């Protein structure tokens, strides 16, 4: 299988803090890779480096190479805006745009960047909402405010908004941690379906979730990559003692 994203000796510093230490790993195309680890281990930091979200933090420094389709996204002259169109992101807390309708939220990536012809927009809204299994729930109130939706619906709306701009990779930062079990289940089913078209990298606190949705798992601890490999193997016969301890709940 093709490796969509490749990390080569990635280090991330915030001022003096060394948050991510020398991580090299790959993320295969059309699969789900979970990044797990205890709080503060650098998993979100690592995730956010993959669409250059750290550019906004003045003290953040990313070194090493992050390759998407063999192109280093940190190379000089690479436009972070163009990278973020290819590498989308879903956040921990659902964050639909509060001033926009459900409809406008789905096409926000286009509206904020200019215009989108009406017919195209209609089509896009319907297809994206169908893909996140939200269409039937909201088709009669597309023009109502997005904040009227439940948390789980909002998160699916955010995923619809992300896939509407046709990314290649989708980063998910604990996408279900603020949701109830039923909404979580729906998001997990959705991830399963989305991997047919996209490469998905998901950070999660929840080990059962990692075991359920991912094909590959990486275990981070204190900024180090302890172990990564096929999820089945990580959860049954890990090579490292620390991985086993974490997975069996002995720390973390």
């Amino acid at each position, binding site marked *: 299988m093709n490796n969509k994203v490749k990390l080569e000796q990635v280090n991330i510093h915030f001022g003096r803090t060394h948050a991510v230490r020398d991580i090299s790993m790959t993320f295969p195309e059309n699969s789900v890779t979970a990044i797990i680890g205890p709080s503060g281990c650098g998993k979100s930091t690592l995730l956010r480096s993959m669409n250059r979200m750290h550019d906004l933090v003045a003290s953040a420094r990313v070194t090493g190479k992050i390759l998407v389709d063999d192109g280093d996204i940190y190379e000089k002259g690479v436009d972070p805006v163009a990278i973020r169109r290819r590498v*989308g992101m879903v*956040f921990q807390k659902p964050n639909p745009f509060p001033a926009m309708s459900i409809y406008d939220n789905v096409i926000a990536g286009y509206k904020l960047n200019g215009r989108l012809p009406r017919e195209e927009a209609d089509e896009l809204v319907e297809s994206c909402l169908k893909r996140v299994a939200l269409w039937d729930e909201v088709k009669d109130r597309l023009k109502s405010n997005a904040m009227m939706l439940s948390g789980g619906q909002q998160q699916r709306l955010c995923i619809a908004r992300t896939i509407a701009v046709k990314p290649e990779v989708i980063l998910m930062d604990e996408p279900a941690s603020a949701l109830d079990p039923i909404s979580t289940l729906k998001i997990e089913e959705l991830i399963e379906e989305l991997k047919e078209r996209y490469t998905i990298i998901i950070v999660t606190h929840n080990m059962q979730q990692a075991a359920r949705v991912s094909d590959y798992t990486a275990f981070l601890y204190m900024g180090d990559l302890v172990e990564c490999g096929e999820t089945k193997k990580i959860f049954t016969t890990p090579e490292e003692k620390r991985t086993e301890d974490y997975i069996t709940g002995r720390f973390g």
Partner: protein
Amino acid sequence: MQSVTYRKIKNHLMSGLMLACTLAVLIPLGLIFFHILKMGVSSLSLDFFTHVPAPTGEPGGGMANGMLGSAIMIGGASLIGLPIGILGAIYLSEFGGSRVSTVIRFAADVLSGTPSIITGMVAYTLLVVPMKGFSGLAGSVALAMIMIPIVLRTTEEQLKMVPGSLREASLALGVPFWRTSLKVTLRSALSGVLTGVLLAVARIAGETAPLLFTALGNQFWSKNVLQPMAALPLQIFSFAIAPYEDWHRLAWAGALVLVTVMFALSLTARYFGRTRRAG
């Protein structure tokens, strides 16, 4: 241990004291408003809103030219001050490095603390002297200088209240930072920004001192911004110190109109502030 009765008495005493203090804040406002209302209402007439001041000794006349002049100069000040204040605030909140921002913030605070008569003198030196004449334009510039720090700081506060998650949501969709600042951050803070703008307008609407050296005032219709221009607060000032009884009455009417306009602006500002949604 103190007895319950003693504590209850103390409690009532202190609550009463605090209530009295609160009322003490309201009393001056009430006195001003009711006195102006009493003195002004009888002098208000249609003429007041449609006529220029009558020549000395003649009855009647109004302050229509002052109201027009005030409106023109406030409009001019807004044209100059709002873009600078709002764009400056976006810079401070979204782009500025910490050191530059600290300096700008400090400067804005000093500027807003500067006595307005000094602002008038600055505008006099900058515009009236080189242009060899008093003008509405100079008045607008002086008012803008008062407006800018207010708009800058309130807008900055409002922008900072916009949750970072919204900026991130927009950026993650591949929207450039500057578009995010305008279409997401500023858009979300809009009602709060509007509140600040209205309060700034209310503030400059009543300013008299900076206009003394700049717009000067005018007894006639004055629509040319390069000529001396009438303004409501200036007319109130000059009519109030004149030795004629009917001029005093006009000054009271002018004061009533001014206070009412400012009251309405503050109320509108509060309305926008209260119906604020996060977006």
